[in-house]
C-alpha cells in the first residue's frame, strides 16, 4: 500500500513531458482551426485574414477580433454541396460499419473457438495486414479491380459476364476498400470479448434445451456487446472522415467530407472553409469520440 503510494509520485511526474507535448500539438492546434474557420480567405501568405500580430498593439488585435465572422459556417450549412458531403459521410460510415460487423463477427467467433494454441496464430494473422500500409492495400485492390484486372479476367474466363465490368470509381469498390482496410479493427475487439467469455454459459443454455440460434442470440451476443461497441466505434469514427479510400476507389460525382476538406485546402487553397469543415466534422463526431474515450479508459484502467 505505502510502497504503491511512494511509487506513484515519480510516476505522476512522468506525465509532464507527454502532457505538455499533447497539449501543444493536439489541443492547442484546435484553437487555431477554430480561429481560422472564422477568418476569410485572402490572396496572401498565409492565405487568410485577419492575421493576428501580437506585436502590433492592442488596437490592431481588437480590430482583428472584430474581423472574425461565422460566414464560413453559414456557407457550410446552407450550401447543398457540403450538406450532402456530411450526409454521405455518415451514410457511408454507418453502412460500412454494419457490413464490417456482419463480416467481422463470424471471423472473431471462429477465432475464439479455436484451440488456445491456434488462437494466438490467428490473432497474429489478423494483425499483420493492419501493419502493412493502408495505401498499399488500397493499391492492391486497384490492381485487381481495374478494367483488365484479375477480377474481370476471372469473371470473363468463367463466362459469368460477357464483357468487363466497371469496378473502379464505384461505390461498391469504395465499400470493398473500406471493409478490407478496417476489418482488423472490427475483429480484434470482438475477439477480445468473445475469447474471455465462459464457454460453460453457452453449454448450460444448450443443456437446458435452447436451440443453437437461441443460445447465440440470448447468451453469446448479449455478452459480447462491449466488444461490439468498441469495434463499431473504432471503425465508425475514422470512416466518417476517411479520405484515401473514397478518393482512390469511389467515383468523383459525390464526395465524402474528408475529400471536400482536402479539396478546399489543397486545390482551392481555401483554408478558412476547410477549417470550418473540420470544426463541424469534429462536432458531429464529438459524442462517439467521448464514448470511445470512456470505453478505452475502462478497458485499460479498471481491470
Amino acid at each position, binding site marked *: 500500500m505505502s510502497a504503491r503510494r511512494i511509487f506513484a509520485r515519480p510516476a505522476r511526474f512522468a506525465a509532464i513531458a507527454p502532457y505538455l507535448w499533447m497539449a501543444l500539438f493536439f489541443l492547442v492546434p484546435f484553437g487555431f482551426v477554430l480561429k481560422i474557420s472564422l477568418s476569410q480567405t485572402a490572396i496572401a501568405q498565409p492565405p487568410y485574414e485577419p492575421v493576428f500580430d501580437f506585436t502590433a498593439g492592442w488596437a490592431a488585435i481588437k480590430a482583428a477580433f472584430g474581423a472574425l465572422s461565422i460566414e464560413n459556417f453559414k456557407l457550410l450549412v446552407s450550401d447543398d454541396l457540403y450538406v450532402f458531403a456530411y450526409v454521405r459521410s455518415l451514410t457511408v460510415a454507418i453502412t460500412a460499419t454494419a457490413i464490417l460487423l456482419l463480416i467481422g463477427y463470424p471471423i472473431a467467433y471462429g477465432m475464439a473457438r479455436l484451440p488456445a494454441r491456434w488462437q494466438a496464430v490467428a490473432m497474429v494473422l489478423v494483425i*499483420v495486414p493492419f501493419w502493412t500500409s493502408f495505401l498499399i492495400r488500397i493499391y492492391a485492390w486497384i490492381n485487381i479491380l481495374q478494367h483488365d484486372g484479375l477480377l474481370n479476367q476471372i469473371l470473363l474466363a468463367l463466362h459469368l459476364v460477357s464483357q468487363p465490368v466497371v469496378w473502379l470509381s464505384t461505390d461498391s469498390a469504395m465499400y470493398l476498400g473500406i471493409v478490407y482496410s478496417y476489418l482488423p479493427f472490427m475483429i480484434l475487439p470482438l475477439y477480445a470479448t468473445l475469447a474471455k467469455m465462459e464457454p460453460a454459459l453457452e453449454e448450460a443454455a444448450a443443456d437446458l434445451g435452447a436451440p443453437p440460434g437461441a443460445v447465440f442470440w440470448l447468451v453469446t451476443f448479449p455478452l459480447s456487446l462491449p466488444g461490439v461497441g468498441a469495434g463499431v466505434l473504432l471503425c465508425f469514427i475514422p470512416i466518417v472522415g476517411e479520405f484515401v479510400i473514397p478518393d482512390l476507389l469511389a467515383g468523383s460525382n459525390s464526395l465524402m467530407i474528408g475529400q471536400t476538406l482536402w479539396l478546399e485546402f489543397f486545390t482551392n487553397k481555401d483554408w478558412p472553409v476547410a477549417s470550418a469543415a473540420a470544426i463541424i466534422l469534429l462536432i458531429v463526431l464529438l459524442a462517439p469520440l467521448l464514448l470511445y474515450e470512456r470505453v478505452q479508459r475502462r478497458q485499460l484502467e479498471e481491470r
Partner: protein
Amino acid sequence: MGKVSRLSRFNVASLALGLAFLYLPILILVIYSFNASRLVTVWGGWSLRWYREFFNDRAMIEAAWMSLRVAVASASMATVLGTLAAMALSRGEGFRGRTLFSGMLYAPLVMPEVITGLSLLLLFVALNAERGFWTVTIAHTTLTMCFVAVVVQSRLGSLDRSLEEAAMDLGCAPVRAFLLVTLPLIAPAIVAGWMLAFTLSLDDLVIASFTTGPGSATLPIRIYSEVRLGVKPEINAICTLVIGLIAIVIVIASLASKLSSSQGESAAPL
C-alpha cells in the same frame, strides 16, 4: 462437450474466407511486382526489372529515404513519450488533469486524419515553422505516441505490481525500482510499441501531406501521386519492398512479444 467439437464447420469456413480475403490482394500484388511485362495484367515471366527501375528513380529513392528518417526519429520520440504517459496513467494513481490527459491520448487513435493533419499544419503556420522533415516528424510523434502509450499501458496493467513494491520494501528508491524491475518487464511492449510507431509513420499519407513542405515528399505522398495516374509496375515493386521491410519489423516485434509471457488485451490492434 470437448474443446475440439466446439469448432463448427461454419466457424472454420468463416475463418478461412476471412483470412483469404485479407491476404489474397497483397499476395497478388507481390507476385505481379516480379512480372516482366509492362502491361500490369499480362504475365510476361519472372523478372526484377521493376526493382531496377525503382532503384534508378532518384525522386522515389529520396522520398523513401525521407520516410525512413521520419519513421525512425518519430518512433523513437514517440516511444519515450508514450512510455512515460503509460507509466503516469497506470502507476500515477489520481492526479490533476488526468481525465484530460487520457482523453488527449485516446482521441488521436480514432480521430480522422484530415482533422489532425489540418490542425497541426495551422499550428506550424502560426508558429512560422519551416515545413519539412521536422514538422512531419513532430506530427507523426504526436499520432504514434498514443499507440505506444496504449500498448505499454496494457502491458503495465497485466503486470504484477507486487514485484516493484517488493523491490521498494527491500529499500529500492522508486526510480531505481522502475529501472531495475518495471522497465525490464515492459521492455517487450516498448519494443513492440516502437515497431508499431515506425510502421504507422512509414504508412501515413494524410498527416504527412498536410505537414510537409515543398521538396520534401515522403514515400506515401510519392506513391499516392503515382497511383492517382493509374497502375504502374514500378509501384508494385516499391510496395513489395515496403511490405518486406514491414514483415521484418513484424518478425522482430513478435519475437519481442514472445519474450513477454502474458498477452495484454486492448482495443488497439496489437
